[in-house]
């Protein structure tokens, strides 16, 4: 998903979010600027995102994602 540039909102360059592999699990990576060769990871840990990104709110910088459910998700990640 394309993430438009918005300097006032902490996004100095255009970018995009895609599913990338991180330590053997599918996670979300944010590539910005568009020609960045490595992602800034948005998620990580021993679990997977299932269907990429569902939505991005360009006002709040919030990313909405459907995930597999892990009771300990917030404790052992990020």
């Amino acid at each position, binding site marked *: 998903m394309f*993430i438009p540039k918005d300097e006032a909102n*902490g*996004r100095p360059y255009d970018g995009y979010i895609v599913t990338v*592999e991180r330590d*053997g*699990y*599918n996670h979300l990576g*944010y590539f910005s600027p568009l020609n960045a060769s490595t992602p*800034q*990871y*948005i*998620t*990580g840990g*021993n*679990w*997977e995102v*299932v269907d990429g990104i*569902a*939505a*991005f*709110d*360009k006002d709040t*910088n*919030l*990313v*909405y*994602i*459907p*995930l*597999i*459910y*892990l*009771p*300990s*998700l*917030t404790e052992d*990640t*990020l």
Partner: protein
Amino acid sequence: MSTKKSPIERHLYSVHLTGKDLKPLTDIENDGWYGVSFSPLAKYYQLSYGGPDIPYQSVLSTTDRNFNLPLENNTQLAEALKKYDLPKYEYGQINANGFTLNYREIRPPNFDESGNTKYPVLFHCYGGPVSQTVAKRFSLDWHRWLASEPRLEYLIVEVDGRGTGFMGRKSRVGIRGKLGQLESYDQAAAASYSHYKFQV
């Protein structure tokens, strides 16, 4: 609630672009299999609860917690199902060939857990690449009928072995170049486990 990690539910989360502040939007205290479709500006979303209880669909808002527009509650379905004894489910994990695998038993409604009653056991196998059979999702199908029909009372076992999805790369990719082989080993390992568990 199990503290073991398992991919048999689907919930909706939000996270800041920086990776901070991961928060659930769905009720993670209860089992759920949710699907979602957002409006272009991400202020509204259609949430589809797919089970394990009666499915429903609503439109909710990311900015107003009180906004809730129900689209479908399936009340007729809920009413109709009250007339039937539906199967019971048992979820768990087994260790097979070095991997932790999810399984589900679909049990007859009045299943005798004492071990005194012998039940015919059927394995429902699929196991295609990046598939998932074991899921906390509403379903009424042939296998549930086999379990709940009083003249049959089969015990159905489903196992997601190697090659199925959502458990990481290691368990997903081992089947490459030998499709069907590891899948069979894992079903066999699960069957052997069941043999001791149920003494069939």
